[in-house]
Structure formats: structure tokens, C-alpha cells
């Protein structure tokens, strides 16, 4: 299983975890997407009625916690974290509208096509984000391509 994320996700995530009230988001993502099976990682409900590329919404830390939006490409076991928002507090809100859902799906597709996304990994107790283009270039250099 590969965990990737969109540039907008990194921006939103970095902004949120500067606030102590939202530091749980990082812990919850690590718990929900690392060292677990792909079956576990794709929990949530599907927003685009797709069986091959479900656009999934997941609750983080229960009702008043946060909501995470992601697209899973099932055949490759790839997960693209697209957006996260808390439910309460100064940056919190109830839900996103249809326009935002459409935009997020489009952003996921554009990011995949242009390879403008990040590889997400765990570094100690934190998440780290590496631009996918850098990883690709490193691998190509190592292979002498």
C-alpha cells in the first residue's frame, strides 16, 4: 500500500497542526494509514459511487474530531489524501459542499496526471512529505537512466 497526498493537503495539514487543538489529526492519520492493511485503510463511506476509484470520507477521532477525504486506486492499493478539516474549534466546520467535492476529485486526477503529489511517510511520531517527482528522479539516477 502506498500513501500519497495532494499539495493542498500538505498546506492544510501544516496549518492545522500548528494549533495544539488539532495535533490529534497527525496521530490519527498515522494510526489509520500506517502499519495496517489496505482493507483497514479504506474504511469510510464512498462519495462518488465508484468501486475502482472510490472517493472516501473518513471520520478521524469520532464525531467531533475531523474529516479526511481521500481517493483510493484499488488495483494499485494507492491512497491519495486530498483534504482534511476539523469539525469544531476556530478552523472547524460541519461539512464540505458538492462544489468542493467535485474540486477535490478533479485535483486528485490532475495531481496524478502531472505527478504533482507527495509520498507520505512516518518519521518518528510525525508525518513527512516528499515530492513524488524527487523520489522518481532519485530512483532514475540510481538506475542510471
Amino acid at each position: 500500500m502506498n500513501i500519497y497526498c495532494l499539495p493542498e493537503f500538505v498546506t492544510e495539514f501544516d496549518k492545522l497542526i500548528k494549533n495544539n487543538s488539532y495535533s490529534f489529526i497527525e496521530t490519527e492519520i498515522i494510526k489509520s494509514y500506517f502499519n495496517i492493511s489496505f482493507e483497514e485503510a479504506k474504511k469510510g463511506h464512498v462519495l462518488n459511487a465508484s468501486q475502482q476509484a472510490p472517493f472516501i470520507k473518513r471520520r478521524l477521532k469520532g464525531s467531533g474530531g475531523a474529516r479526511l477525504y481521500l481517493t483510493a486506486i484499488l488495483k494499485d492499493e494507492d491512497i491519495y489524501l486530498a483534504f482534511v478539516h476539523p469539525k469544531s474549534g476556530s478552523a472547524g466546520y460541519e461539512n464540505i459542499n458538492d462544489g468542493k467535492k467535485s474540486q477535490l476529485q478533479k485535483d486528485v486526477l490532475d495531481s496524478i496526471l502531472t505527478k504533482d503529489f507527495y509520498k507520505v511517510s512516518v518519521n518518528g511520531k510525525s508525518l513527512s512529505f516528499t515530492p513524488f517527482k524527487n523520489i522518481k528522479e532519485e530512483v532514475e539516477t540510481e538506475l542510471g537512466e
Partner: protein
Amino acid sequence: MQNTCPPHNQNHSHGDIFHKISSDVVSFNHKPKTDNQQVDKFLDIINDIRKDLKERTDAIENIYIQIENLTWHAYSDSELVSLRELIKLCHTSVKENNNFIQSINVLSNNGLLPIEISNFREAIDDFAELVEDIDSTYNRLINDSDFVQITKHLEKL
């Protein structure tokens, strides 16, 4: 040490006073028995509401899981008609349960069953959010040609 007892009314004998107080004590002793019954009745009602709220919370969480699972499947046009009827029914349920929460808020505002009411309210809030999402998926986004095209493109990657 100073005597702090109030002065007796000089017109009454000690015997009269003992008799009056004894009578007050007897009537006081009768009161708690009635109060105990009322407290028991009150606690029974509170426990019934507690049990009812717990059952409602478990039921709505169970429905939440079932509906979440529904979103992982494909549906024919006729099945979509039934699914849309289910969404309508869920909207009605959210409305009715929000009214119910309004009516029991008086309990938590007075310090009664705050945890049970909060758990129930959270379960209904989550359910309402899920119902809004499936409404968006199966009544609106499914008819949004741009959204459908992007989904198809993602499926072909």
C-alpha cells in the same frame, strides 16, 4: 458557657412543648416514606430514559454502519429508486430525532443524563452528516456530468 436556647413562651408548660415537638417529629417521620417512593419513581423514570437513549444510540450507530457499507456497492436504476426512498426516510428520521433531542435537552440542562444525551446527539449528528453525503452522492453528484467524467477517468488510471 452561655445558654443559647431560645426563651420558652411563658404561657406554655414544658409538657405542652414536649407534646408539640413530639407531634412535629411524628409528622416529620411520616414524610420521608412518601418522599422515598417519589424518589424511587423518579429514578425509575430516569433509568428508563437512560436505557431508551442507549438503545437509540446503539440503533442509529448500527444503521450508520449499514448505510456506510451501502456506499461500497453499485446499483441498477431500479435499485437507485429504492435507495432514494431510503434517503428520504433517513432525512425524516434525522428531523424527528433532532426534535426529540430538543425535548430532552431540558434534562441535560438540569444535570440529568448529560453523557447519554451527548452520546445520542453525537450519533444523530454523525447520521445527519452521512445522510447529507449519500443525498449528495446519489441525488446530485451522480447527475453531474463533470464529476462523473472525472470519476471514470480515475477508474481507468
